[in-house]
């Protein structure tokens, strides 16, 4: 009796691929199979390129931040604090002009309200967004997999209790839930990540649970059980690996969703705290200057858009690539 009962049927239908016996299933799981399919699917490939590029940017920013102590950024990034006399606030991108002056090559995308370089801040925002996106998804995936697997495999009262709890979490609009969670525990990025991760648990829980319920009765699981294999081993060695494809698709899409939610949170003042650059917080700061310096509001948004599109295209592409109904 779920409050989402209208959808549960669809989910099971989506999850149930129509591959035949156990031999065929074996051939259609795993990393090597996925990579092969992705190479053959144009959409998945474009998604991989975008996600790969954004990951590279994020790793570059992290490398500069942790190892080189901003050495690369300092070279391009003009730091207003070191030279307060010469602060150039709200400059437009190179080739454009606004009331604060003309765009300069030093700041290709212009500067923010405190004279900091927008390109480097946007690049550094990638680090936060990607980290949060991946970690929040990992928390949701981990929590959802355990709960969904236990719930689906054992059934009965364990299933009832776990499903009622995740249903309740799902029943509070997730942005509101994360805001309430962060108000209670802390406003910084760690709690944003955990909060968004918790809201993703019900998503993976339902996916895994519906898979487990349908796979539980398969012959090879029956056989394993008859052979005396422990429940835990059946769940983690047989059932979860066989749910690889839909979980991978969902996880890819979830990274995009998490990036969107965290950007929204930062926009509201929850999440990365200044001066750490995050896209949502940059957009929030830009609100005061939309009329004189509109480009300030544009670039962080485009960065979010491109990153999330990358994950969405990759997710869609993976879905097509790994769907046996299409490949057959």
């Amino acid at each position: 009796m779920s409050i989402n009962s209208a959808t549960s049927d669809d989910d099971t239908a989506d999850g149930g691929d129509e591959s035949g016996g156990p031999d065929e299933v074996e051939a259609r799981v795993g990393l090597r199979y996925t990579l092969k399919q992705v190479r053959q699917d144009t959409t998945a490939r474009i998604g991989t390129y975008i996600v790969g590029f954004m990951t590279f940017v994020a790793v570059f920013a992290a490398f500069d931040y942790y190892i080189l102590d901003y050495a690369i950024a300092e070279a391009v990034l003009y730091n207003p604090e070191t030279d307060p006399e010469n602060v150039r606030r709200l400059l437009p991108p190179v080739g454009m002009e606004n009331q604060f002056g003309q765009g300069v090559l030093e700041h290709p995308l212009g500067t923010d309200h405190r004279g900091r370089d927008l390109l480097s801040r946007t690049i550094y925002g990638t680090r936060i967004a990607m980290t949060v996106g991946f970690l929040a998804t990992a928390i949701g995936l981990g929590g959802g997999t355990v709960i969904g697997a236990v719930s689906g495999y054992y059934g009965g009262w364990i299933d009832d209790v776990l499903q009622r709890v995740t249903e309740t979490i799902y029943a509070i609009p997730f942005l509101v839930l994360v805001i309430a969670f962060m108000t209670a525990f802390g406003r910084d990025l760690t709690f944003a990540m955990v909060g968004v991760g918790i809201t993703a648990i019900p998503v993976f829980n339902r996916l895994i649970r519906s898979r487990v319920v349908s796979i539980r009765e398969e012959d090879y699981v029956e056989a394993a059980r008859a052979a005396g294999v422990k429940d835990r081993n059946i769940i983690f060695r047989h059932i979860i690996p066989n749910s690889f494809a839909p979980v991978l698709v969902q996880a890819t899409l979830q990274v995009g969703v998490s990036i969107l939610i965290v950007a929204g949170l930062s926009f509201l003042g929850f999440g990365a705290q200044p001066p750490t650059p995050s896209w949502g917080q940059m957009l929030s700061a830009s609100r005061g200057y939309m009329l004189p310096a509109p480009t300030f509001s544009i670039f962080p948004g485009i960065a979010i858009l491109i990153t999330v599109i990358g994950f969405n295209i990759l997710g869609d592409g993976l879905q097509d690539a790994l769907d046996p109904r299409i490949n057959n």
Partner: protein
Amino acid sequence: MSLLRYTLRRFAQAIPVLIGIVTITFFLANQIPGDPVEIMLGPTPAQEQVEAIRAQYGLDRPIHVRYFTYLSGVATGDLGLSIYYDRPVLEMIMLRLPVTLLLMLSAFAFAIVTAIPLGVISAKRRNEPADHISRIVSLIGVSTPSFWIGLVLIIVFAFYLGWFPARGLVLPWADPADVRGAATRIEVLRQTAHHLFLPMIGLGTLQMAQITRIERSSMVDSLQGEYVKLARAYGVPESTIVRKHAFQVAQLPVITIIGLGLSTALGGAVLTETVFEIQGMGRLIITAINNQDYQLIMGTTLVFGFVYVIGVIVTDITYSYLDPRVTYGDE
């Protein structure tokens, strides 16, 4: 089973979830650091004053007693007193909830009206240019943060073109005497529409994109159905097939996605209200948090949950009403 009984049963089933929402909200609010009494009275209040206030708000009692008091309060419609506004929480919510609901309804109306034709055309002309455009639009739609769409709309349509106001909302039920430049109800409504246009698109774009995607895939499936082949074999015109045979069946997954979209839209409303400075539930919860107004934080959070649960029930009922295969019996 009749539709009425099914409706009642769905509401009865929602009760444990509603109690769960109250529980989560209560215990989260209890984790909030800081002392609300201190915020009320300033940093160095007199001890007796603190105790009096604590007793007045019931803060001196143990947590489980407060939980059950709160739960029974919620059941009778008493959500406590907002310390910040010095008014009952329910009163504040009743003032703000209609604003958010108006925003949500208009956003969903916009989404449905634009998405359904887009999705149908996309499915009908699969892999043609119209389909590609519609798919790209919906891909961008699901990938763009709603608050950024709001900012861009303000820059373009409010600041540069000056077509729409950048902030605020004129409530349709406002007294014409209180609204600047409006003498009659019609003028008030015109101003409401004028103010609502940009926030509606800002909030509705994501829903539009999601509905378009589902509408397209659902129509593609539906157009390949046996009944469509049969109708074609009978020589039924293609437009009639699309309109009469395929379309109706294809709407069921769309209703589901609308129900699920409510959660995103309610969260999106918090952001959209912030961008357009609209005084709805979203601004209320942010004000509550910024002023550590416990009762108001709890009240607004659980009303957000309640609205979502009720919305999902309504979509479930619509679903079972439209789907000839769903009986109102046991699932």
